[in-house]
């Protein structure tokens, strides 16, 4: 287990070195995406209006206040369940070059394999810990697709964003899979 402090954008070499249970904090910018954002990209086939190569994407829909000058002030920014958006992960990492997905709940086997092929990782944040997360997001820098509010495409500037736990690496290993396989075996052994 090692601790890493990474600056965005991320390279393939940076993510390939990460191993399960390493902890990571991120400085730089991260993108916020959710169900509606990815339905637009992948189901409606509308390319994102910004280059996501080497980026870190967070599964979120923030609570915000719109300011008179059109910018957005953060109210509360936290993380939603990634598993619901599992089917979009291969496209994000293989088609758009996303290097890390930050979420909670994990993603499934096809996504684990896509991350292995593309060189990408899944970083688990503590779900529900949005008071901390909101402090670590310094500013909402940009927003696209405001008609999807709050599920727009967001760009956040972050400082010491984390601690994030490396839960799926780029070598085909998933902590979620290991924990669930162990749980299945233990449940099967219970005397009921």
């Amino acid at each position, binding site marked *: 287990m090692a601790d890493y402090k990474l600056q965005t954008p991320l390279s393939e070499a940076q993510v390939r070195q990460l191993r399960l249970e390493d902890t990571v904090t991120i400085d730089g910018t991260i993108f916020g995406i959710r169900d509606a954002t990815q339905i637009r990209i992948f189901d409606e086939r509308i390319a994102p209006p910004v280059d996501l190569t080497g980026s870190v994407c967070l599964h979120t829909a923030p*609570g915000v206040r719109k300011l008179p000058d059109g910018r957005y002030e953060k109210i*509360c920014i936290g993380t939603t*369940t990634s598993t619901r958006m599992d089917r979009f992960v291969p496209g994000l990492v293989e088609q758009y070059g996303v290097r890390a997905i930050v979420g*909670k*709940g994990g993603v499934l086997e096809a996504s684990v394999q896509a991350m292995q092929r593309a060189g990408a990782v899944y970083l688990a944040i503590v779900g529900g810990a949005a*008071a901390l997360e909101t402090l670590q997001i310094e500013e909402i820098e940009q927003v696209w697709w405001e008609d999807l509010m709050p599920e727009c495409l967001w760009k956040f500037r972050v400082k010491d964003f984390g601690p994030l736990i490396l*839960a799926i690496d780029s070598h085909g290993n998933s902590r979620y899979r290991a924990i669930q396989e162990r749980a299945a075996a233990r449940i099967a052994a219970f005397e009921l």
Partner: protein
Amino acid sequence: MKTIYDTIETVARDLYWTALKDIPDDIRAALKGGLDAERKDGNSTAEQVLFTILENIKTADEHDTLVCQDTGLPVYKVVVGTKAAVDIPELKSRIQRACERATVEYPLRSNTVHPLTRKHTGTNTGQGIPIIKLDFAPGSDCIEITMAPKGSGSENMSFLNMLNPAEGLRGIKKFVLQCIFESGAKPCPPMIVGIGLGGTSDVAMQLAKEASTFRKIGSSNPDPDVAALERELLDKINQTGIGPQGLGGTTTALAVNIEWAHTHISHNPVAVNIQCWRGERASARITADLKVTYGNGGL
């Protein structure tokens, strides 16, 4: 002159904010207990997760901010004293107005959409929302309101099975453990497991929600057989090793709460509803002379 309805509206608005900011004492104590247990067992990831959760609660206290970004679907449980002079349709309309005000005045993220068009109402209210659960207290002239902003990650982990009577208690246990396995990391464990037994299908689901969302941790069902099942299932669920955030550990659930109703000879209904670690709820009692007492997660 301020009326009972004005007070209801203000209290119902403030309870929405309080529930989102101030984690109930029973939940805090259970999370702290989980942290101590994981530390003792040497589960470093689980310890880090629970430490972050407690730090987050402290941060929300210190900065007077929301604990989690999910402002949920608003659920109000309202117990009206039979001697309280209130018009129920007016009470319901004031609680709806309270949700709109809580959302616009803060502003809170609105989550409420049409189920087909997915069009937002923008106010955390709409058709059938807020959810208002009414009950009556004989002889009382008070109104008690408990508010729970039910988050989606945990609510998506809802299950119903109309088992055969022949599957019995074993079938009930097997189904609950299967639900926990399927939920895994998704509902933000450590979770509170609500189980509804008996009734018709809709009653079983309502009992499960009452158990997951409105019952305090540390309470047990008054029926000793049901209480024994609560203890057995909590023990087994924590032996699965799913742990905090599904990243491994012994603190998978903070509590298993069961509520029950009698049922048909042909039925064996089991409903499961999960609440996330934040277990958010806030309560208040309004007396006939409009005095308000607030309770941290219950009265």
